[in-house]
């Protein structure tokens, strides 16, 4: 009694599972995220920079926002001093979203790309599409 076919079947199943990332992408176009900073507020700025340098923001914005939550709601601290000495109001709505008023073209662009679902909007009011309040 030879059982070779069972082993071959198992190997086929293994190969199918392991190549899933490749096979699942077949036929689907590759969409690169292009977060847009084209909003009225940002257009008005001379030097287009967020509160900290771009690369730092890309990596750390989540930590900054998390610490801002504690500053504002627990410690009552409402001023953030950036590394270049500038001062900002600790507020998601009034500081971040003032410039980045295009949530679905800015925030969502990368968040959907890497499949993260921030729960900020469980409490904060989500900006209306179009960015006008």
């Amino acid at each position, binding site marked *: 009694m030879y059982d070779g076919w069972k082993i071959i079947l198992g190997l086929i199943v293994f190969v199918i599972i392991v190549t899933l990332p490749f096979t699942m992408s077949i036929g689907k176009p*590759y969409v690169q995220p292009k977060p847009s900073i084209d909003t009225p507020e940002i257009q008005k700025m001379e030097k287009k920079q967020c509160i900290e340098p771009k*690369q730092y923001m*890309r990596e750390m914005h989540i930590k900054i926002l998390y610490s801002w939550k504690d500053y504002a709601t627990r410690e009552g601290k409402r001023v953030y001093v950036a590394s270049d000495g500038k001062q900002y109001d600790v507020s998601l709505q009034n500081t971040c979203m003032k410039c980045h008023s295009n949530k679905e073209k800015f925030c969502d662009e990368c968040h959907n790309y890497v499949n993260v679902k921030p*729960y900020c909007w469980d409490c904060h009011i989500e900006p209306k599409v179009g960015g006008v309040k």
Partner: protein
Amino acid sequence: MPFRIPTTAGQQFSLPWIKYSKIDNPSTGWGVALRMFFEIAFFRSLFRNTKADILNGRLYVGSNKWLWIGALAFHYCFLIILVRHLRFFVGETPWCISLIDSIDSFWQIGLPMLYMTDIIIAAALLYLLGRRIFNPQVKYISLPSDYFPLFLILGIVATGILMRYFAKVDITSIKELTLGLVYLNPIVPKGLGSLFYIHLFLVSVLFAYFPFSKLMHMGGVFLSPTRNLANNNRMKRHVNPWDYPVKHRHYEEYENEFREKMKKAGIPVEKE
């Protein structure tokens, strides 16, 4: 095999009115399928792990489930983490992966949200390593090939945890790198820290080391003859499939050929 060599861990099937254990000593293919399922999904044989100890000069043998719990926790967390990583490798993450993700982080501790598998896998790995370091009997039989995978996976988990919760990395750029590989169009985005490359390197070492190491028990568990054969030695005739016709010669023919010589040498013969 001319007969089967399953480990018997229960009453064998014999007479219909004698109760037999269908899973631990299966006599049918379905029983074997169940036994293999419990072995692979729940490490059933490890569950029977016992520990012997001498207390007050007497030998005691008791059940010991720690190894089973540690191993099960480690393997399931590893699986879940691996599956969760699929979000870096497919353009649009399937809903089932998102579901696993949200269950794994349902405590909503911190931001980025804490995955409970991260805590459990780290604890399980430290236990599995500690067992080899502090338990004298296990330490005695531990080889470098036992420590190496543990250290390797600890390194992977440590860099992963550092990246997610402490040092922070640019996930979007990382996904551009991984998707570049998936679409066979590799690019190296700028601004990726060394931590990510350490993580990736250790993972690559793990995958390269895998097929040549004890980690192949992943495939091997399916091929353990003592588990994946039904114990039906007394019901079915098992013929060795690679038995070939052996050339043989009867004693009679032998004697016919050498009878004269044997007589001369004084060796007794059957036929004169």
